[in-house]
């Protein structure tokens, strides 16, 4: 680097640049939060959805699945599973309920979580709510 470009100039670029772009980021964040109600499907958040999110979390579903593309890549995307299962909560519930305790020989299998009927209904409701978030047309197709 050139001699006449000094350390203090470099330092000022660091502090100035960081502060400027962080403030800019905060600005974009405020704007995002103000327009989120148009896309984030918040009007469909119910007590059941809240319980469903809790069931989702305390069973660490993200440890195998992706949700809107984020998570682990071991099991199918679930952001659109409600649509993939023919807009059927019952199909989701039946799938979770029927997982064999000892797994499937030689293959990946979802654990049996022994969820109550109330929890099953809630997780399905949560996945329905998630599938109705406007995620800019992602995933590209129904396979997730």
């Amino acid at each position: 680097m050139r001699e006449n470009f000094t350390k203090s100039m470099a330092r000022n670029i660091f502090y100035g640049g960081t502060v400027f772009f962080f403030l800019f980021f905060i600005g974009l964040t405020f704007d995002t939060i103000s327009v989120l109600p148009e896309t984030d499907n918040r009007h469909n958040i119910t007590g059941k959805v809240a319980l469903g999110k809790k069931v989702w979390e305390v069973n660490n579903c993200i440890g195998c699945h992706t949700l809107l593309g984020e998570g682990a890549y071991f099991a199918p995307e679930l952001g659109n599973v409600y649509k993939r299962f023919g807009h059927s909560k019952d199909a989701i519930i039946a799938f979770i309920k029927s997982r064999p305790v000892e797994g499937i020989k030689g293959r990946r299998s979802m654990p049996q979580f022994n969820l109550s009927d109330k929890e099953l209904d809630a997780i399905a409701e949560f996945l329905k709510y998630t599938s109705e978030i406007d995620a800019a047309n992602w995933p590209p197709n129904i396979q997730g």
Partner: protein
Amino acid sequence: MQYKSQAVAKPYFIAAIGLFIGQILFGVILGLQYVVGDFLFPEIPFNVARMVHTNLLIVWLLFGFMGAAYYMVPEETETELYSPKLAIILFWVFLVAGALTIIGYLSVPYATLAQMTGNDLLPTMGREFLEQPTITKVGIVIVALGLLFNISMTALKGRKTAIIMVMIIGLWGLAIFFLFAFYNPVNLVLDKYFWWWVVHLWVEGVWELILGSILAFVLIKMTGVDREIIEKWLYVIIAMALISGIIGTGHHYFWIGTPDYWQWWGSLFSAIEPIPFFMMVIFAFNMVNKRKRDHPNKAAMLWAIGTPVMAFLGAGVWGFMHTLAPVNYFTHGSQITAAHGHMAFYGAYVMVVLAIISYAMPILRGRAAANSKKSQVVEMWSFWLMTVSMVFITLFLTGAGILQVWLQRISEAPMSFMVVQDKIAIFYWMREVAGIIFLLGLILYVISFFVGGEEEASS
């Protein structure tokens, strides 16, 4: 060792290596579960093993960062650590909390762990990388604040170099952004939005400050190049890292229900994220060329030069590959992401921690400046085994990812996820072989600590 209190770094480094071994063992288990789906089922299902793998990675890197901080701060500030005793207490708190958390993951179902640790009081669990019980998260905050208090007080009474200021800002950032781990709204979009304030603003933000300062410290010590020059480079590199990386957070806001304009902001700024890594490569090679002495610790030099190269490849090139929104639309949440994650974490953070350990450990063990030639040869073998096998892990996952994206998302008759997984199994097998070679490299790395004696002092 110039300052007595630097010795507190030693247990941190040892714990880091110990947990690293655990991380890789679970990595090999996960790799096998990808192809032998019922391996260890239902005792250790994939989600549990993955949680152990990723959480151990984070914890051992934090141990490494903390060890680096405790080692560097006295030497940079030219004064003894404010409280070596506090550093040792925090070490045990962190180790015990970490161990209990991992034992919890492995011994009871996750839902039971959530119940036992009172997740209902403040639900923070069950989100990727933030799976720790809330009480563990509180512990992490306490340990981080204790560390910050300790090194900030040391810096206040001593010399304030750019390297140490950058390190301290990085660690403060680490602690502050971790606080977003406690924010977990029911609204999934908001949850995800601020989850990235921990995850992205850590690894593509403040952690890069810690990385830069460790690398600068090691390069000053090993090359003897003028501090003014190295610190100037450091400032320019971290300036570029944050200027690109902060708005670059937007590359995570493409498909999670956030406004479309993030596709522009995220693509534009993350496209320049490789630049600081490229500068880091130029910086490291330049400093080595301009070196004023030949340091006897060749192994540490190898790690220090390897870090920017692999970070540039993993974070820079593999990151850029799928960061533009039109590309990411198809690659989001596929094995491409996994490929990038593996090489980026290894290149940027694993290697820099191994670089400071390689540089500091001989000195902490009372040796003049380096281990014996014999020990260094073993360590350099471990460098090449781990680094080359990580390149192959990345290449195989990239192959898997490209096929996955094609079969599942682009082809005329898209197949379902599980069908595609079967079709790309060959790549997972090859990845597993590369993973085992990585483990062998790691075993060799550990062995290197026990072979040969001391190198003759030279300057």
